[in-house]
């Protein structure tokens, strides 16, 4: 997935989360609004009910028309309120309960009407009782009148108190009276009034009961709706916290994932660039995926590989250059050494010739003389001088030969045969030291057009050195092979003691010898080197202490014009 897609994906997840949270919050809010309406309705009902109860009490106390009118109007309000309740709220309350409420209100209204009727009946009846009492009072006489007046006193008390006790007191006195038709009717009227009073009390109780039921319902409704609103609010709060936590967690997870998939490859790339800056081009950084960073890493790797290859070939070129420079320096050094050596040799040669002649003359004279004391001793000394001069002569001649070179005669010959010939010359020395010669000579090598005598001199020098180097019974391996299209090579390897690294560098320098003092002039290899170079070839040496030394002589098939040294 590309980084752009990743970012878009993360953004989409955020937007989705925000939309979900927004939707939930909106739904909660609308629910809360509905519930609050319900609370409002419940409160309205409760308030109306309170008004009704107030007027109900006032009416019951004063029994006047004003209060009953007010009560009726509030009751109408209440019914309107109840009827105006929205359907969904009714569903929420429950239809049965709603109907119960309506029934309760209906019953309440009925009972109120009933009690109003009863009150009217009571006042009618009370008027009738008073009228009947007044009529009887006019008709009765004497003692009976006195008793009836006392009874009327009890009647007044009952009318005032309207309770069963005062009615009973009245009844007891009434029963004790002598009965007549009028008195009977009067008593019956009082009794009917008592019955109405009882009925009123019953209805009153019913009214209280219904009112309480309505009150309880509205209180419950209000409380329930408030509780619901609170519950929803609490749930919303929880949801909000949960949503925030989810957003936080998802956000962190997405960001961490994004950061990992973007930053980690970048860091890895950065690490690689640092290493590359430090010169380590072999670092190939693997980044999985198909995004922009992966393709960047791919380009980076390609660049690294190309740089690595370029650096590799550059290093090789520099190495070659160093090698050439080293060879050049070596050749220059040897050339100047040769010039110096030749100069020294030439200068020394003349005084050497004088010493030689003087000593020779002394020897001649000594030999001619008869009576020279200690003649033999002197002759010994002279011959020692001559011997030393002879050694010097060898050195100067070789030095001059090394410096000036010899005439080059070019002929075509087979190098393997030339090697065999040289080995033949040295047969005696090889046998004497019991050396095993292993020949790997290619008899089908192309003919070489070069100076055979000089090359044989070279081979002789090298093989002689090998013979000197190995122990008795040592092994010398001589091989000839092709070296590229335009040259052949002869390799002479021995299992002698080898040459330490610090000495191998100087091995072709004049007067440098690894042999014992007095055994070598230190010129053999420098002359050999000079010859090989003059013939356009190369001579190299490899050696390991304790394992042996190997010389490789490269001879071009044709002599190239080369600077003489």
């Amino acid at each position, binding site marked *: 997935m590309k980084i752009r897609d990743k970012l878009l994906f993360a953004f989409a997840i955020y937007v989705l989360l925000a939309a979900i949270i927004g939707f939930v919050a909106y739904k909660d809010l609308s629910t809360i609004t509905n519930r609050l309406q319900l609370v409002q309705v419940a409160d309205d009902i409760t308030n109306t009910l309170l008004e009704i109860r107030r007027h109900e009490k006032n009416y019951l106390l004063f029994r006047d028309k004003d209060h009953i009118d007010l009560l009726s109007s509030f009751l109408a309000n209440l019914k309107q309120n109840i009827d105006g309740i929205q359907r969904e709220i009714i569903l929420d309350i429950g239809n049965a309960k709603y109907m119960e409420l309506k029934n309760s209100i209906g019953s309440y209204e009925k009972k109120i009407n009933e009690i109003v009727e009863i009150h009217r009946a009571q006042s009618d009846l009370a008027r009738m009782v008073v009228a009947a009492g007044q009529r009887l009072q006019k008709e009765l006489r004497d003692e009976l009148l006195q008793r009836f007046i006392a009874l009327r006193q009890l009647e007044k008390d009952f009318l005032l108190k309207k309770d069963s006790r005062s009615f009973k007191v009245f009844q007891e006195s009434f029963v004790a009276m002598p009965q007549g038709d009028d008195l009977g009717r009067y008593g019956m009227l009082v009794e009917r009034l008592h019955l109405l009073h009882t009925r009123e009390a019953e209805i009153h109780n019913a009214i209280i009961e219904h009112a309480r039921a309505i009150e309880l319902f509205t209180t419950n409704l209000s409380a329930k709706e408030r509780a619901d609103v609170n519950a929803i609010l609490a749930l919303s709060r929880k949801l909000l916290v949960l949503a925030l936590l989810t957003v936080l967690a998802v956000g962190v997870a997405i960001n961490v994932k994004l950061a990992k998939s973007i930053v980690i490859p970048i860091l890895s790339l950065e690490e690689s660039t640092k290493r590359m800056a430090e010169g380590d081009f072999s670092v190939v950084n693997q980044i999985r995926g198909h995004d922009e960073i992966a393709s960047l890493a791919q380009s980076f790797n390609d660049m690294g590989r190309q740089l690595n290859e370029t650096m590799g070939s550059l290093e090789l070129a520099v190495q070659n250059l160093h090698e050439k420079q080293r060879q050049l320096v070596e050749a220059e050094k040897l050339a100047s050494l040769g010039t110096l050596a030749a100069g020294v*040799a*030439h200068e020394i*040669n*003349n005084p*050497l*010739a*004088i*010493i*030689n*002649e*003087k000593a*020779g*003359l002394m020897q*001649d*004279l000594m030999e*001619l003389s008869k009576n020279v004391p200690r003649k033999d001793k002197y002759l010994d000394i002279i011959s020692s001088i001559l011997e030393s*001069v002879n050694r*010097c*002569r060898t050195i*100067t*001649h070789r030095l*001059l*030969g090394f410096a*000036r070179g*010899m*005439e080059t005669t070019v002929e075509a010959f087979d190098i393997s045969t030339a090697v065999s010939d040289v080995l033949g010359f040295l047969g005696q020395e090889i046998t004497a030291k019991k050396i095993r010669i292993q020949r790997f000579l290619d008899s089908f090598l192309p003919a070489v057009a070069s100076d055979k005598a000089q090359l044989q001199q070279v081979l002789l020098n090298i093989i002689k050195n090998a013979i000197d180097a190995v122990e008795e019974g040592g092994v010398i391996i001589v091989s000839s092979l092709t070296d590229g299209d335009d040259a052949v090579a002869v390799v002479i390897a021995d299992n002698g003691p080898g040459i330490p690294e610090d000495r191998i560098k100087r091995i072709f320098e004049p007067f440098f010898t690894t042999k014992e003092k007095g055994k070598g002039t230190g010129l053999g290899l420098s002359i050999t080197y000079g010859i090989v170079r003059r013939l356009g070839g190369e001579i190299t040496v490899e050696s390991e202490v304790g394992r042996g030394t190997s010389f490789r002589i490269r001879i071009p098939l044709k002599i190239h014009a080369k600077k003489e040294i």
Partner: protein
Amino acid sequence: MHQTTILIVDDEVEFASALAERLEIRGYSAIPVFSAHEVLSMIEAHNPDVILLDLKMPDSDGIEVLRNIKKIRPFIAVIMQTGHGDPDSVRLAIESGAADYIMKPINIGELTKKIEALTEDTEKG
């Protein structure tokens, strides 16, 4: 028997005189010549059989001296002495008429052998 006369031409006085003395001891008549300029007059004076000529002298070129000798006395045997076996100089000397060459320091035996060989030839010739 004719005594062989040898001119030793070398600017090194000590060398030439010592070598002359040694050749005298060996029965030759040897005359040292220390300068190239004197060579022709000495030839006139001594009529030598063999001339031992140094190839390189500070005041003259040995090859030039050799050619001059050959002009007046083509049959005198000249042995060139060189400090080294420079093949080009040797070849040039031989081409210019030198009979042989010998390298310094000289081995007396080698020199007398060469002289004998050369004088035998002339005697025979």
